């Protein structure tokens, strides 16, 4: 069973099937492999054209590695990453060679948490934002100047800023520069890894508004990775939840937040502090620590922390199922548990 969307008529732009990324753990002088970090461990989902799919989970659960596999910044261990090109041709990004990937780079771009890390401090905004254009064959300088000016205007920056260096800008402005750079090649899929996590709330609101506006103007498709559930809920059409390298639940945003079916999802939601002092503080339902993906628990990876765990959960790994159309969950008892949240 894969997380394709049986009720949605939109076409998938990206289909991830049984994706795995294991990092070897080496030891000794001969760098012998003594084990593996199962960073992404059997993940399948679709991203539909024009939607925002939110990807959440505690740190270390494999969100960034999943994103890096899609960008082919790392090579997946196994599985398929099917991408529908502009001409409707479907290619498997997991199988392509570096050379074969090159023409696809323009169609898939990334926005990072730390925009400064992705900008070259010694290059002006013109060079930083214009570089992907140059790489993609726009060699005419005046043509690039016009395009960079348009891009800066698009993200709410003044075109005159083109000749300044990144350090002259605040955190929020740098994130706008990172977005302009990502949009320079007219991508169809934008993978945003924690794009607002380092920003103050007032700046965060400005960047979220910009992303929503750009999506409706340009018809972009977003894979939006974040750990802040309020932010993910605000921006996403559907939300996927990861735990120790696995996808444990995926559903339309409203459904997921009002009726989660996986105990981990509901515990995660209960941990979010509500900005209203009149709402009493809930008890802590999720104790202990996330297991290491180098040594995941037997059976259901969540069983050591799950308050509904049974003997079956310790031995039998639940499969990803679709108990109601478009709602995917990896739990033996998804149909029986009552997990309604406060939201």
């Amino acid at each position, binding site marked *: 069973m894969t997380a394709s969307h049986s009720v949605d008529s939109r076409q998938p732009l990206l289909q991830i099937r049984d994706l795995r990324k294991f990092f070897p753990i080496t030891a000794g002088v001969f760098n012998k492999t003594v084990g593996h970090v199962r960073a992404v461990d059997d993940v399948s989902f679709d991203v539909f054209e024009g939607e925002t799919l939110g990807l959440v989970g*505690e*740190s270390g659960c494999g969100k960034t590695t999943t994103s890096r596999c899609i960008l082919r910044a790392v090579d997946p261990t196994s599985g398929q990453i099917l991408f529908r090109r502009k001409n409707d041709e479907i290619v498997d990004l997991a199988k392509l060679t570096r050379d074969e990937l090159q023409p696809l780079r323009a169609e898939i771009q990334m926005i990072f948490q730390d925009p400064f890390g992705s900008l070259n401090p010694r290059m002006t905004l013109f060079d930083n934002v214009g570089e992907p254009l140059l790489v993609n064959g726009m060699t005419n300088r005046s043509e690039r100047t016009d395009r960079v000016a348009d891009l800066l205007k698009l993200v709410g920056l003044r075109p005159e800023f083109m000749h300044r260096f990144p350090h002259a800008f*605040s*955190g*929020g*402005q740098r994130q706008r520069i990172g977005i302009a750079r990502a949009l320079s090649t007219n991508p169809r899929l934008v993978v945003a890894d924690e794009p607002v996590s380092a920003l*103050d*709330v*007032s*700046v*965060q*609101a*400005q960047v*979220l*508004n910009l992303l*929503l*506006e750009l999506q409706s103007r340009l018809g972009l498709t977003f894979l939006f990775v974040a*750990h802040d*559930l*309020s*932010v993910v*809920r*605000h*921006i*996403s*059409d559907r939300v996927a939840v990861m735990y120790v390298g696995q996808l444990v639940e995926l559903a339309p*945003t*409203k459904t997921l*937040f009002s009726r989660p079916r996986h105990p981990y999802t509901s*515990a*995660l*939601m*209960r*941990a*979010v*502090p*509500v*900005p*209203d*002092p*009149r*709402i009493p*503080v809930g008890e*802590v339902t*999720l*104790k*202990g*620590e*996330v297991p290491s993906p180098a040594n995941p628990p037997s059976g259901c990876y969540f069983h050591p922390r799950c308050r509904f765990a049974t003997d079956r959960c310790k031995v039998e790994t639940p499969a990803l199922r679709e108990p109601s159309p478009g709602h995917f969950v990896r739990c033996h008892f998804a149909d029986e548990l009552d997990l309604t949240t406060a*939201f």
Partner: protein
Amino acid sequence: MTAPLLSVRDLHVTFGLDEGSVRAVDGVSFDVLPGQVVGIVGESGCGKSVTMRSILQLVDEPGQIKKGEILYRMRAANGQGESVIDLTKLAKRGAQMRAIRGAEIALIPQEPMAAFSPVHTVGDQIIEAIQLHHRQWRPDGSGLSRAEAREIVVDLFRDVGISMPEQRVDAYSWQLSGGLRQRAMIAMALSCKPRLLIADEPTTAIDVTTQAQVLALLRELQRKYGTAIIFITHDLGVIAQMANSVVVMYLGRVAEQGPVDAIFHAPKHPYTRALLRSIPSIVGQTQVALPTIAGTLPHPFNRPSGCPYHPRCDERKGPECAARVPSLEPVDQGQSVSCFLHHDSSDTQ
């Protein structure tokens, strides 16, 4: 009315840099009552950490306290009675300031990695602090052996929810996960039984699930030992859950201060109101534009005249906003505001 444990009065801290001088803290006043949790919010760079470091006389060079008082109600050395001292008057490296750091007032700094030395085990560093402040555990002054201090650390680790405490005591900070390091940091801060705990964004780098555990722990400690806490965060949800009273800072000044319920349900300063509107709610409408605060935070060398918030204020009252600096005045039950919409008093600058 309970006398405050800590009272910061008109604090000014300036950094003299080559490019000019930065007024990092520009007239901050607030009180902390015994056993209370005071939440401090404000955008990065508004002076939260510098204010906290001033309390402990730990402001980095070239920062200098230019003006103001930090009054602390201190226990007498023999445990009998209290006296009020001005911490700004104490020598930075003097015996009295060293006696206060850790034993009276403990800081959980914003960078937990920097708080522990990488060359000594976490346990050794806490044991050393406990032995230094042995009177906190043995008021008769009889001192503590290494083995006794180690026992205390193991108990503290258990209290803060560190599993396998006997082994973890011998770990180096870089061997601990972010969540464990945060807990070890809290154990360190509590090791000398402070009456005031200052937590500078203690949960910013950790997941919501770990955050929920750390917050529950701090609440329990506060109930159990009556420790007063100053809690700094940019997460308004955390403030709502933790604080009895809230201080909202903007550009080195207090915009508004009051009981937590008033700040969230009857905010009076235009900045507080705008800040509360700009957070995506876990129950609100989705995929719509969030209300934002116009413009950006001014550069520290380029402070606006008059009310520091006036270039961005969407409720600006009139020409006085650009001409005079509104002072922090009480306007309601325990609520004070620096804004001409609520009073007409200004500070001389």
